[in-house]
């Protein structure tokens, strides 16, 4: 037996070491990231819910989340085929965009602008048939007035843009035309996004100029019912845009922005930030605040098809149930075509996929059961959050287990304190899931139980006194 030993040069050793480093460094970094994620998740706080049944807070509002947006994945009336399903959602407002590039509204006859409302009117008729009022995102630039005919460009003549806005308002809010009341007109849609023009707060494509001429058009509207004009409808809540609008001196009746955030707490943070920014501007502090599109991601995701999307909506509503925006628009009502892979944003699948309702569809009316006076609830955790209410002596608690990054299951202890002695019926109802009912007797003024909540689940606990 012989041993063959080959000496390698230092240079070869260095090269091999370098290669090994290059290969293993990313793996090492990945391992660190995963470890940190696991540690941070493990360090999250489990919930220990305590509800004081005698500590009543303010009345709970449920209207604010009955607002929906429909994107422009097709240039037709996307709501016509789902009117009855949408009506069941009890929508207060439905927002649409692409007004001027999908429905052939604006044309030119010589130097004069001409308007044909027939196609847009049909869409608006579908919206009103659901019981909702439309919110018009005044977008995009009609090609007949846009520079180079490009719909995300400024117009050749700003006065023509003002006229387009004026005529839109006169048509829908005008007493002699559609005679609609309380309509909201939002200037543009996501102006900061490259896809919609990369408008800035200055320069050649100045959103404030776009807004100013929209405001001029609004102020010129004749014989109209009360309506609202607002913006900036950005992809997120940005202070420079909000304060820029405040300082512009233009007519502003509401502030709007979009929120695609997986962390529900950020929605409440945004609300607090906005109020703080506006406090030094007393005329603007109380103006309506609209999140005119929201979701957990702006990208298409299969999360929108399952309980993840539903739990996210419920979790966001919990964050905004007190001191929330005037309206929170879920994006969107119906998937676009060719999205049978389940990645569409819709609450309902497209016609080509059977118009099936996804779990997210059911969450709004489910939470409506919570209407009443809010009760003091403490002990929310990292994943499990909730709120409680009382109405006609029935105590209801909504709990959501939403884990944005994983699959966290939790057994949640729940204690109701200051309960009157007596017999109660406890009903436990999971969103799109099981329902159980038990009878209990309370003698020590409190009642404790536990609920095992799978990841991305929403449960409603209802306690009714039997006698």
């Amino acid at each position: 037996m012989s041993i063959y030993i080959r000496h390698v040069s230092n240079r070869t050793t260095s090269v091999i070491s370098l290669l090994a480093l290059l290969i293993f460094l990313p793996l090492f970094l990945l391992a660190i990231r995963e470890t940190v994620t696991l540690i941070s998740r493990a360090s999250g706080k489990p919930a220990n819910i305590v509800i004081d049944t005698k500590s009543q807070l303010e009345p709970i509002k449920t209207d604010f989340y009955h607002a929906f947006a429909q994107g422009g994945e097709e240039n037709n009336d996307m709501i016509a085929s789902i009117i009855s399903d949408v009506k069941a959602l009890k929508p207060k407002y439905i927002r649409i965009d692409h007004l001027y590039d999908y429905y052939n509204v604006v044309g030119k006859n010589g130097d004069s602008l001409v308007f044909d409302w027939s196609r847009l009117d049909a869409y608006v008729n579908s919206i009103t048939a659901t019981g909702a009022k439309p919110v018009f995102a005044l977008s995009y630039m009609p090609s007949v007035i846009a520079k180079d005919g490009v719909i995300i460009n400024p117009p050749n003549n700003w006065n023509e843009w003002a006229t387009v806005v004026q005529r839109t308002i006169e048509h829908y809010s005008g007493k002699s035309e559609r005679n609609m009341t309380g309509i909201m007109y939002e200037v543009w849609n996501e102006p900061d996004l490259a896809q919609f023009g990369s408008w800035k707060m200055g320069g050649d494509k100045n959103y404030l100029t776009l807004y100013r001429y929209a405001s001029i058009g609004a102020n010129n509207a004749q014989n109209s019912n009360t309506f609202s004009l607002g913006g900036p409808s950005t992809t997120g809540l940005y202070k420079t845009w909000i304060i820029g609008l405040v300082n512009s001196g233009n007519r502003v009746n509401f502030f709007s922005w979009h929120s695609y955030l997986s962390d529900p707490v950020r929605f409440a943070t945004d609300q607090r930030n906005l109020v703080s920014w506006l406090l030094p501007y007393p005329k603007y502090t109380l103006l309506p605040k609209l999140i005119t599109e929201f979701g957990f991601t702006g990208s298409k995701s299969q999360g929108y098809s399952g309980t993840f999307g539903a739990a996210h909506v419920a979790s966001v509503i919990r964050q905004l149930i007190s001191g929330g925006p005037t309206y929170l628009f879920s994006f969107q009502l119906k998937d676009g075509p060719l999205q049978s892979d389940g990645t569409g944003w819709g609450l309902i699948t497209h016609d080509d996929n059977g118009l099936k309702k996804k779990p997210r569809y059911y969450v709004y009316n489910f939470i409506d059961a919570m209407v009443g006076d809010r009760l003091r609830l403490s002990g929310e955790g990292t994943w499990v959050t909730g709120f409680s209410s009382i109405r006609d002596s029935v105590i209801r608690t909504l709990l959501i287990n939403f884990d944005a990054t994983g699959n966290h299951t939790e057994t949640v202890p729940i204690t109701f304190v200051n309960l009157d002695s007596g017999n109660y019926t406890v009903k436990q109802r999971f969103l799109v899931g099981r329902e159980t009912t038990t009878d209990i007797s309370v003698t020590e003024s409190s009642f404790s139980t536990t609920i095992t909540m799978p990841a991305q689940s929403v449960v409603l606990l209802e306690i009714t006194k039997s006698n």
Partner: protein
Amino acid sequence: MLRIIDKDMKKVVFILIGIITLLAIPATVFLAMRTQELRKKAAPATSLTLSPATVAKKVGEEFTLEIKINTAENQVVATEINLTFDPTKLEALTIDKGAKFPNILSSGTVGSGTATIALGAENTTSPITGVGTAAVVTFKALATTTSPVSISFAPETFVGALGESTTNVLVSSIPASVTITSNATSGTITPSPTPTPTGSSLIPTLTPTPTGTQSGETGASSLQITAPTSNQALLTDQPTLVGKAPANSTVTITIYSDPITVTVLADANGNWSYSVPNPLGSGPHTIVVAALDPITNQTNTATLAFVISDGTENGASGSAMPVSGTVENTLILFMIGIFFIFIGTLIPTFTKIRL
């Protein structure tokens, strides 16, 4: 000869006009600024008070404090209330809106040593005015204290009002103090000791305002400032403050704008007085006094404005503050003055009066 005199006279007149104009411009600017400053000082002042001001609890007990607002003359549209306290001694359980504000603008949040909520009026045509409960906070006593711990308003606390531009109209905030014991017999709100608002717990944002009214939380009879009188112009810069309060109560007196806080004891008849030991600056001042009413367990506050006169101002009218004062009015008067000066110059020039 006469012609020479005439030419010399013209020169003299022009020189005089030039001198007068040169003097008039800075004088006008000074007066305009001063008028503006006085007007600014006349902006009404809003206060926030935690009630009751003193609480005694045992470990584990919960208690509720009301955050009272006195808008004074302001038309308040929104407020952001930020409370701070020692998180090792106290835990905030909830902070919610009170009856005075119909809207929660951003939800009440409680954290370690903090409690925050933003509240608003219904709309700008129905602003909040007067005295009432802005918010309600519930605390839990966590650990015993060797001396009272304070629950105070953080400097970020803001009150916005119509017509006050971007100004925080909050000029005073009175904290509460909590004594926590493990004594099983405790657990009641006691009338003493009354906490002394410290400089750090006060938010000196604006020079305070002569509101001209007393603003006792539960009525002027329980807590009053009887001297000086509202908006009185005092010739002394070391006045004696006199008033009425519940018998034997501790009265906390805060004098703005450089907050001076002291406590004095009311006698058995409820009389209290305080002689300001150091000279106050000339100009407007505000006194805020607070005392616990042992019957209602409510902290009453009263506010009063007065002016230290330097003996040359407002003497004729005796009014502490101008009714109004704007740059526009002053500039119009200035322009009129310039017009008359020019007319006075041109007339002798064209009429050529000869001696």
